């Protein structure tokens, strides 16, 4: 029979109309398959595949140059063909046994009808059909009820046969309790025989009477996938290593042939049964090798085989590992490092990466000269190109081997040059875990020497990135459409505000905050030279303003410098972060410079700290600029003024030493006194408890009450020490500046460094576990000293005692465990939420719907408001509107340009 040269297995014009799932019948399997496997060996002595073995050529072409005997294609185009194993005796297919059990319970063991009266069956059939059309979930529940009802029958209403109770023992045992006879095991053959008698009425039980015949849920013919599904690999030694599926199938074939031989030699029934059961185990293992209660298939008694179910299941499985998430081309990954000099929209790309990743560039009459230059430079000189696609020849040339001069010469419009990444290209930049949409943003390429991706520090918050070894991924969009989307929707500056709560998520942290404070604090004055440096760092090219002070010489304030970068009609009023504790004031009449007032774009009073320029601080100055003047205005501010925040620190210096946390002798004495005083209170609590005078907290035992009161007392002590330390330290020392402005650290941290660590706790309790009635052997049992239960009076400056170190480590470990547990739990929750919500979207009419158009919400968020365009959730800020109107009127009602 002459073979056609190529049987196309699909036509490009074919459209998938629907997909039907069902259970293959033996006849269908026989029709599909091209080879019957009867031999367990794979290769003959000479290395050729065994005919009728698992590598039979009829499974499809796999070797280079080989022609498929079935379809005539080579390995590139042959889709592969199925084979079959004719089982000597039928076996159960795991995962189908549950359905068979239901059927056995609900149908007659003789005639196969559902064991309910005919009228009832008809009635249920109508109900079932109606339910399935409207409430498919409910139809399932209904089926369960029918099964439960039919299982009650002891006599078949149709043929009168007696019914017995059926018992299912996982994974493959069905027992029938025939009264006096006791439990009898039903073989797959018997079960198959019974369920094959069932009629179309089993649709009520949830079966599709044609496409999912129950008798096909027991395998009598096993389908064998083509070799391309289970490829072998050749090791360097020349030995072939077969796929796990092939191993599993080979065992099935061997056992099948063994069983067939035994049956032909009319061996004892038990021997047949035993070998039949082995075959059952093998087939089950081939489908799912992690069945509870079943034997595992192994490779030489060691490694458990990865069979069909294992290929699909779990994180590394086909679904989660290869379909939901897959490895991609045109991507790069490396360590990130900071670069405060590039724009927030940019990413520094190492030259090596830029010469590996490519962008397809369509040659036009307008860029042909540029394209020629890339071709001439070739793959090893940046900016060059790696491949050229000649449209007229329909061929792709690698510039590693081709004659580049010649190719450049014959380059024509319409050709495609795969050129290196160059400055100005758009790429997607990503850091895992990708928890929100700002985890993948569009950046503009800036090619640089070095081996790391460079990142502006202001975009660390959305990625939650730092530079202690973090790595990030970069993806190069390959189509104009994708590039346009990246530029217009994903560019960093379009994500300054977060849709989560409406506030800037891109913005200053740490040094930017301290710098903003140092620059704008009212004690800062700058000479002409310093102002020039600050403005140059910010890229300012306009005129210098008049100096604020003329005698003893010209001096400018930092507020003047900052004002140069604000929009001309910017209005802002609000407390700064330093507006707290002793320095707090409710309004603009603030003596401490801690109330920010910006009018007509001029910073009149207040310092720029976290509450003005910081990231993740809603309703601050940066937020107002982004909201009211647009993302681009905010980006310009971030790319200019913020650079002078860093520069001013370089001029002044910002650092810390132990001396920044030195407390004067008097303060240290007072801390000692405080500790003594509070310890006395603790002893007093113990005394009250012993004498039964201690007031019990409602709902607590006396012991618990004592413990709670002690903890409260010690916490009070910590607070007192904290205020004391804060009062004695110079508020203008660098550590204190960092804490007050919100740049880094807090008063608690400082008092712990300078004065006292305080009570350490595990699970919110004082540390008590360890020995009997004491956590460490260094203390007396049931000690009244707070130090015995994790109270640390030492400070980081003075150092901790050995027992103090132990308690501190115990409390510190809790934090580590907490973060580990929290990340894994929230990660799983995130996965489930995403899976549940990913297809919901806001319609043009403002409703929230799923992909079928079902309504979830009648108005998005119940108010139809996009949080990203709000004042921290409020759609309109009336106070601010009034303030703005007033300011405008003060200027004669005209908006000043």
């Amino acid at each position, binding site marked *: 029979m002459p073979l056609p040269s190529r049987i196309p297995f699909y036509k490009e014009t074919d459209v998938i109309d629907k997909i039907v799932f069902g259970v293959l019948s033996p006849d269908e399997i026989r029709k599909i398959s091209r080879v019957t496997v009867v031999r367990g060996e794979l290769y003959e002595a000479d290395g050729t595949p065994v005919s009728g073995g698992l590598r039979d050529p009829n499974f499809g072409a796999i070797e280079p140059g080989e022609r498929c005997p079935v379809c005539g294609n080579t390995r590139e185009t042959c889709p592969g063909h199925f084979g079959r194993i004719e089982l000597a005796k039928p076996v159960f297919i795991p995962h189908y046994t549950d359905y068979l059990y239901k059927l056995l319970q609900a149908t007659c063991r003789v005639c196969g009808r559902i064991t309910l009266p005919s009228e009832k069956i008809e009635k249920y059939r109508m109900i079932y059909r109606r339910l399935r059309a*409207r409430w498919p979930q409910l139809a399932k529940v209904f089926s369960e009820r029918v099964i439960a009802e039919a299982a009650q029958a002891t006599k078949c209403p149709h043929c009168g046969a007696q019914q017995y109770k059926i018992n299912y023992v996982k994974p493959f045992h069905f027992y029938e309790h025939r009264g006096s006879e006791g439990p009898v095991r039903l073989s797959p053959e018997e079960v198959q025989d019974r369920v094959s008698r069932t009629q179309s009425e089993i649709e009520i039980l949830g079966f599709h009477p044609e496409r999912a015949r129950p008798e096909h849920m027991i395998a009598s013919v096993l389908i064998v996938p083509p070799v391309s599904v289970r490829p072998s690999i050749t090791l360097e030694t020349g030995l072939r290593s077969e796929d796990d599926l092939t191993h599993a199938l080979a065992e099935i074939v061997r056992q099948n042939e063994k069983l067939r031989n035994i049956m032909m030699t009319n061996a004892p029934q038990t021997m047949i049964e035993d070998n039949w059961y082995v075959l059952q185990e093998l087939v089950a293992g081939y489908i799912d090798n992690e069945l509870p209660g079943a034997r595992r298939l192994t490779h030489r008694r060691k490694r458990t085989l990865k069979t069909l179910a294992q290929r699909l299941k779990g994180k590394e499985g086909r679904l989660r590992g290869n379909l939901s998430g897959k490895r991609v081309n045109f991507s790069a990954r490396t360590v990130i490092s900071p670069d405060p000099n590039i724009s927030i929209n940019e990413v520094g790309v190492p030259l090596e990466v830029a010469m590996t990743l490519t962008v397809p560039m369509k040659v036009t009459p307008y860029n042909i000269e540029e394209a020629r230059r890339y071709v001439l430079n070739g793959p090893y000189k940046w900016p060059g190109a790696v491949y050229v696609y000649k449209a007229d020849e329909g061929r792709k040339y690698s510039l590693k081997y081709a004659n580049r001069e010649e190719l450049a010469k014959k380059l024509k419009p319409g050709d495609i040059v795969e050129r290196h990444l160059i400055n100005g290209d758009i790429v997607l930049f990503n850091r895992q875990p990708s928890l929100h949409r700002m985890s993948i943003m569009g950046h503009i390429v800036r090619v640089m020497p070095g081996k790391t991706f460079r990142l502006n520090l202001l975009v660390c918050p959305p990625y939650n990135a730092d530079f202690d070894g973090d790595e990030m991924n970069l993806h190069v969009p390959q189509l104009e459409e994708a590039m346009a989307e990246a530029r217009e929707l994903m560019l960093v500056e379009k994500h300054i505000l977060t849709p989560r709560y409406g506030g800037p998520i891109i913005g200053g942290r740490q040094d930017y905050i301290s710098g903003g404070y140092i620059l704008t604090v009212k004690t800062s004055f700058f000479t002409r030279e310093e102002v020039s440096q600050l403005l140059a760092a910010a890229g300012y090219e306009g005129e210098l303003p008049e100096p604020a002070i003329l005698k003893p010489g010209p001096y400018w304030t930092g507020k003047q410098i900052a004002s140069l970068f604000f929009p001309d009609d910017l209005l802002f009023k609000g407390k700064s972060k330093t507006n707290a504790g002793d320095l707090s004031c409710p309004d603009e009449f603030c003596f401490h410079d801690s109330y920010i007032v910006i009018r007509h774009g001029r910073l009149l009073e207040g310092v720029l700290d976290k509450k003005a320029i910081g990231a993740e601080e809603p309703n601050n100055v940066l937020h107002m600029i982004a909201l009211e003047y647009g993302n681009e205005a905010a980006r310009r501010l971030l790319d200019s003024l913020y650079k002078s925040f860093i520069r001013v620190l370089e001029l002044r210096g910002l650092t810390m030493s132990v001396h920044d946390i030195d407390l004067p002798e008097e303060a240290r004495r007072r801390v000692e006194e405080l500790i003594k005083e509070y310890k006395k209170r603790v002893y007093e609590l113990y005394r009250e408890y012993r004498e039964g005078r201690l007031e019990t907290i409602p709902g607590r035992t006396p012991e618990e009450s004592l413990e709670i009161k002690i903890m409260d007392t010690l916490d009070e002590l910590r607070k007192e020490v904290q205020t004391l330390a804060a009062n004695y330290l110079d508020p203008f020392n660098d550590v204190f500046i960092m804490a007050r402005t919100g740049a880094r650290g807090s008063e608690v941290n400082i008092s712990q460094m300078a004065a006292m660590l305080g009570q350490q706790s595990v699970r919110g309790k004082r540390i008590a576990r360890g020995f009997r009635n004491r956590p460490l052997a260094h203390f007396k049992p049931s000690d009244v000293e707070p130090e015995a239960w994790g109270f640390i009076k030492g400070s980081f400056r003075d150092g901790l005692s050995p027992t103090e170190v132990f308690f501190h480590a115990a409390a510190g470990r809790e934090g580590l465990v907490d973060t580990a547990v929290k990340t894994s739990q929230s990660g799983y929750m995130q996965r489930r939420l995403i899976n549940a919500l990913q297809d919901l979207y806001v319609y043009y009419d403002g409703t929230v*719907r799923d992909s079928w*158009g079902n*309504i979830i919400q*009648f108005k998005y968020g*119940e*108010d139809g408001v996009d949080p990203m365009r709000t004042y921290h959730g409020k759609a309109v800020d009336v106070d601010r509107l009034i303030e703005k109107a007033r300011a405008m009127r003060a200027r004669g009602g005209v908006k000043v340009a």
Partner: protein
Amino acid sequence: MASARRRKPKILEHEYVPEHRVLSIEEARDLLKRLGVSPLQLPKISVNDPVAKALGAKPGDIIEIVRKSPTGGKVVYYRFVAAYGKS
């Protein structure tokens, strides 16, 4: 021995139960037209839900619920009365 019919549907007056109302046929038709959906695409409420019972709603009715929301003030929600759910 108070009969079930005579008992007043007190739950509708409870502070925590938002305002429920069965739409007239005209209102229901207008609603479906405005949203461009079939009744089955609306969120559902069981006939056996205590509120549906108290209102005497029948399967196929549409119930309008006016709730107070921290974000949106008074918020209108609709549910299609479905003939399923535990009684």
